[in-house]
């Protein structure tokens, strides 16, 4: 139930910010009856209403002992860590180039998931980065990110 209360607060915040930003949508001479702001305003109001109902229902419902069994899932700091590794790939690819960024990505994710650094894991990362580079850059002809660091 606490999760529902928390999520309803987040939804309310999203609805508020979305509504606030939608008031900045410029007007147009081609505007129709509804206009570009029409749907966003309706969506913001509807989301706020749904969020209030979810929150109210969570307050009024007695917590169930034990609760429903949930899927096995990673603790949130661990999940955020995986996300941060993915996010770090973007500047890494931009500065170091595709191949090096991928080599780092595979090494760090494998280490983060419990694999110890060894010659074997280094070879897997090396092989993986080269495989993806060959697949995308050579075989598919994709213009992969080039290293800005090396000019």
């Amino acid at each position, binding site marked *: 139930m606490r999760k529902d209360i928390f999520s309803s607060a987040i939804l309310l915040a999203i609805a508020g910010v979305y509504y606030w930003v939608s008031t900045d949508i410029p007007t147009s001479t081609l505007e129709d*009856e509804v206009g570009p702001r029409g749907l966003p305003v309706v969506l913001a109001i509807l989301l706020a209403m749904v969020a209030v109902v979810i929150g109210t229902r969570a307050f009024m419902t007695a917590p169930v002992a034990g609760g429903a069994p949930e899927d096995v899932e990673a603790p949130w700091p661990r999940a955020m860590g995986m996300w941060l590794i993915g996010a770090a790939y973007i500047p890494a690819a931009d500065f170091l180039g595709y191949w090096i960024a991928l080599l780092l990505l595979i090494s760090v994710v494998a280490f983060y998931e419990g694999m110890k650094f060894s010659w074997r894991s280094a070879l897997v990362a090396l092989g993986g980065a080269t495989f993806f580079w060959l697949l995308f850059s050579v075989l598919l002809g994709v213009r992969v990110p080039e290293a800005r660091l090396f000019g």
Partner: protein
Amino acid sequence: MEQFFTAVSMLFTTWVVPAALGGLIWGILGGATPGLSASITMALLLPFTYAMPPMPAIVMLATCYIGAEYGGSIPAILIRTPGTNASAATIMDGYEMNRQGRAGEALGLSLWSGVVGGLFGLAMLILLTEPLSRLALLFKPTTYFGLGILGLSVIASLSSKSLLKGLAAALVGLMISTIGTDPISGVSRFTFGAPDLLDGIAPLFVMVGLYAMTELMMRAGIMGNIIKPNASIRVRLPRLPMMKKVARSQAIGCGIGTVEGLMPGAGGTVAAFIAYNECKRWSKTPEEFGHGAPEGVAGPEAANNTVASASLIPLLSFGIPASNSGAVLLGGLLIHGLLPGPRLFEQNSDVVLGIYVGSFVADIAQVVVGAVILPLCVWLVNRPKPYRSAFILALILSGVYTVHMSLFDVGIVLASGMLGYFMKYFGYPFLPAVLGVVLGNLVESNYRRSLVLSGGDLGIFLEDPIAIGFFIAAALIMAGALLAEWRASRVRKAVSA
């Protein structure tokens, strides 16, 4: 007859066969990899299909779905871990057969039942899709708006745990669909001056983020299977007496798979479990179920493979995806500028025919391909989870980049992954959000076009009988879901009292 000859010539003159085989292999490998569902496997394939011509791209996605349904049964039978949700029912007897040293037989049964179910589902697809889609020849902006509302009402039956949470997820999806240039006035909305956002956020990136990235985050640090399958296992296809023995179970699976495939939200998982239950109920030896009964593998596998084709009926006819995998396929169609419905049959008949021919090729080729790549699947299942996660993340980030060759898109996928994590953490379903992103533009633009045509008179929606039919169907779906939720809450209260 003319279409038949065109279909036959397609086998030799187009990219249908390579695309079907490519999709099938990708699907089997993805389905066999624990942690990758059919929809995730398809979402990972989406970026690669972006640069392809429409027909092979859609054939590849459709056959990937077929392959994933068989692939999912491999870890279910070998390591008691369903590769896809729909293969969970196969564990009960499939893994038991493996424990009795009959893994090859179980895999052969799964493969054979997949072929039977797939071909039956394909026959239903060919028979039902075109007549249904002819109705859509009469569509006007008001009808498309009604269709969009009907599509969104599916949310009600997809939000099994909480209708309100499904509604909230759909609203968030609709909000995402409003990002970019306004379809009528051309004004930019929610772009914050970023030129990359002017074209809006492609459903493709939201899907890859929600399905694939979120799954990686949810499973971070959780160790995978500890059961190691024997690398020397080989598929043993059933002989005639066994084929006869499981025929009834397969027929039950095909029937249930067709009905469930047509119903939004049901999907292969529900079909497989219902089929298992019905096969046991109608069996002469129900006591053998759960102890390695071949019918316990044949029924569910026939059902989930029938669903893979039957679920394309509402998708191709009206653009209503009945499952996560259907939503990804719809994303694939939209990426290539293909709108499901009669125009798809008129203007892009090669794509529709390609789906039929490709699915046929994939269903038949499954027997050989499934057996040949089994060692590769076993090798994949045996890889340590840290390497699997690392390679999947590398594939997601590389694949997404190839679409527009932009790291900005990678950022959108990561943002969608974060959104998906919070949705899953707080118990909000994904599919309504995906439907919101996919259908948002259709609903908004056709609603506003209708009002432009009528000079602002809302009565225009009541002048279109098909649109009224869609509104009534949408209302019935929502009422049914509300009734189901009300009943469920009464049962919960009665139990807690």
